[in-house]
């Protein structure tokens, strides 16, 4: 019951948090920014609309948004948000989940290629390349967590017998992991300095350009998928950062979402004080966290006693 409630709450709050980023960025620019509920309005608007399909596209184009959104939702189903046991969990679920996420991306890329637009092909190539690089880090983290907990399941990572926590025995290594995961989060969610989610310049876009041809409910699904994904990553980070494991579920949940909000605020801050990197610098940036995680893993081997 708690699990389902936690899952539903996450879905409901996912559109709210990105508006926090917009607010922070607006504040840095001396503007008011859109209302916090902007994304709910956008959703209502998009779902009321119809979708326009180019005659050159096939069913693949229509599948992209659905698969993308569904796979992001799966992540939340399996993740112990705020330490509440997830709706589903089995041994080895992390592997399947990250590959499900890969599947979602695969369909987004296919949908982009299906339009035969030169822009979207270019964006698809960039997305495929950068996310492949980011995957190295993700699996580096999983290897490390396996060494720490002996399990390959989100539920066991955070609620098992030896939960991973910054206050635990391996807190120092976790700092490296947190930095790495933060960079992966920026990459996977197309944030500055890798991508610019607010630009209108198709030639510079990575993720946005792939969804240029989607409209109405399709676009809404894509947006929802992106928000769920961002919530998953910041939830993941928050679980690592949150030092308290309180007995009261409500207080714990409150604390967890406070940390999540804080992460969103830092994203907004990063986007306000840095420009995005040149495209040829991005791979170097994405590979940096892999080295951090690799180093953390070496530390757990206790080669030097």
């Amino acid at each position: 019951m708690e699990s389902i409630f936690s899952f539903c709450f996450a879905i409901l709050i996912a559109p709210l948090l990105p508006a926090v980023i917009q607010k922070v960025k607006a504040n840095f620019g001396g503007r008011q920014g859109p209302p916090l509920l902007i994304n709910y309005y956008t959703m209502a608007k998009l779902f009321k609309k119809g979708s326009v399909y180019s005659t050159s596209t096939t069913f693949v184009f229509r599948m992209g948004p659905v698969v993308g959104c569904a796979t992001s939702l799966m992540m939340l189903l399996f993740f112990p948000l705020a330490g509440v046991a997830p709706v589903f969990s089995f041994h080895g679920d992390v592997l399947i989940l990250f590959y499900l996420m890969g599947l979602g991306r695969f369909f987004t890329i296919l949908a982009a290629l299906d339009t035969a637009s030169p822009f979207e092909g270019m964006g698809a190539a960039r997305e495929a390349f950068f996310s492949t690089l980011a995957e190295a880090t993700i699996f580096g983290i999983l290897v490390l967590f396996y060494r720490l907990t002996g399990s390959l399941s989100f539920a066991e990572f955070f609620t098992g017998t030896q939960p991973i926590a910054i206050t635990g025995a391996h807190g120092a290594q976790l700092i490296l992991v947190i930095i790495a995961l933060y960079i992966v989060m920026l990459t996977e969610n197309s944030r500055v300095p890798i991508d610019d989610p607010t630009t209108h310049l198709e030639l510079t876009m990575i993720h946005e350009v792939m969804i240029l041809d989607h409209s109405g409910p399709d676009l809404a699904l894509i947006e929802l998928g992106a928000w769920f994904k961002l919530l998953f990553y910041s939830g993941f980070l928050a679980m690592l950062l949150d030092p308290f494991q309180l007995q009261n579920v409500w207080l714990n949940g409150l604390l967890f979402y406070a940390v999540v909000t804080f992460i969103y605020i830092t994203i907004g801050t990063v986007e306000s004080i840095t420009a995005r990197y040149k495209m040829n610098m991005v791979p170097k940036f994405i590979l940096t966290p892999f080295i951090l995680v690799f180093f953390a893993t070496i530390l757990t081997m206790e080669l030097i006693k």
Partner: protein
Amino acid sequence: MDKLLHIQNNEKVNRADIPHLPFDTFRQQLLACAAAGGQVVQFFAYEDQGVSKLLAVMRTDKLYVGGCDAPDSFASLTAESEKFHMFEREIGEQYGLKAEGHPWYKMVRYHANCSGKKDVFDNDYNQDIPGNYPYFSVEGETVHEVAVGPVHAGIIEPGHFRFQCCGERVFHLEIQLGYQHRGVEKLLQSVPMKRMPIIAETIAGDTTIGHGLCQAQAIESLAGLQVDEGAKIVRTIALELERIANHIGDLGALSIDVAFGPPAAYFGRIRGEYLNLSQILGGNRFGRGLVRAGGVTHIMGDEQKQLLRDKLDELTPEVENVSELIFSSPSVTGRFDNTGIVSKENAEKIGLVGYAGRACGLKYDARVSFPTECYGGLPANSNNRTDGDVCSRARVRREEVMHSTRLITSLLDRKEEAQSYTPQEIQLASQSFVVSINEGWRGEVSHCILTDEKGGILRYKVKDPSFHNWTGLALSLRDEGISDFPLCNKSFNLSYCGFDL
């Protein structure tokens, strides 16, 4: 160059005094001038009593003019000097005169010529071909083509960009414009005198004062009108305000293009403040209706002077702070540095003008070389960084904003007041020629008027700085990442309608 006539900016010249050379001599003279470091100011064809003629204005540190009878097809000058390449294409398009041996001979704006000759590009103008024109293509298995435009995201004007890429790397960019061709030159030859400034001001909406001033000076010169000192001050201030407002807007746009939001928001507001100053000065935020042949329509009184002074004192530190915010953040300069480089050598070959040229190390500033209005007595600007990349172009603009502010402040201290403007009947001198050059915010703006024996306009030629600089943008993309195109484009920020005319 010995056979070309040395003239002054805005000097009325009898057409009979312009050396009329045989084509071969004409060609050789122009090439010699170009080889000696000269650049083309105007090079166009016109029809006089049924005969096609060519006329060229060249600049070194002086201005030279020469003309000739145009053969239907002639040996291209571009084959020997790149400086003429756009001009020859334009001549072919407007008057059907073919430049043989031009390395890349294609239409400029896609319209039929006005002389009724056979089209030199073999185009069928009944067909609409947005994007479907012949273009340079690179072949190979890994080469792909990206076509952008003519309809763009955002609110920019139409233009077609064709990239030949290998992955993210751009081999070649070809730019095709002309979607906004309105026939400005023809229109200017046919409308009543009082409509002319209104058309001139709309040649390029962001260079209202620049084009308006060029036309006003040309007409004043042909009609023998005098402009009082006070009006000259107002005109100079107006031109400088236009420069500041545009540079500020572009610096903001440059920072948003690299996803650095805050300066864009600040500069967006500050640009509006400078536009408001233009309104105080001339009653319109974009400078419309201020400059007219014979003077200015608005008098700058002590009240306006004080308003301008106070506002400038308030804005200048703000501009300095926000520029500092842009240029002191490493992630931004990391993006600007070494992006979109045009070498000094190339810049000279294609004759870049304005800040784009100065960022490449070409010193030319029409305010210094051919001063009009008050510029003769004002200090010149100098630029610290001239590497030809986006960073240099941005820094040059920042320096120009500061320089222009100093110019305005010093002009506000002058005592002369403009006399009130009364429109009068204007009669242009017959059989005359004048070329006027001003440094608009984007670079050298030039208008050229030829009159017939009755004092009517025989040929009105307009040249916006974009006519030179679009080629510079194409060159800056060579070997550059395609994702840097928007940034390079913004660093040049060229005019589509100013080019299309």
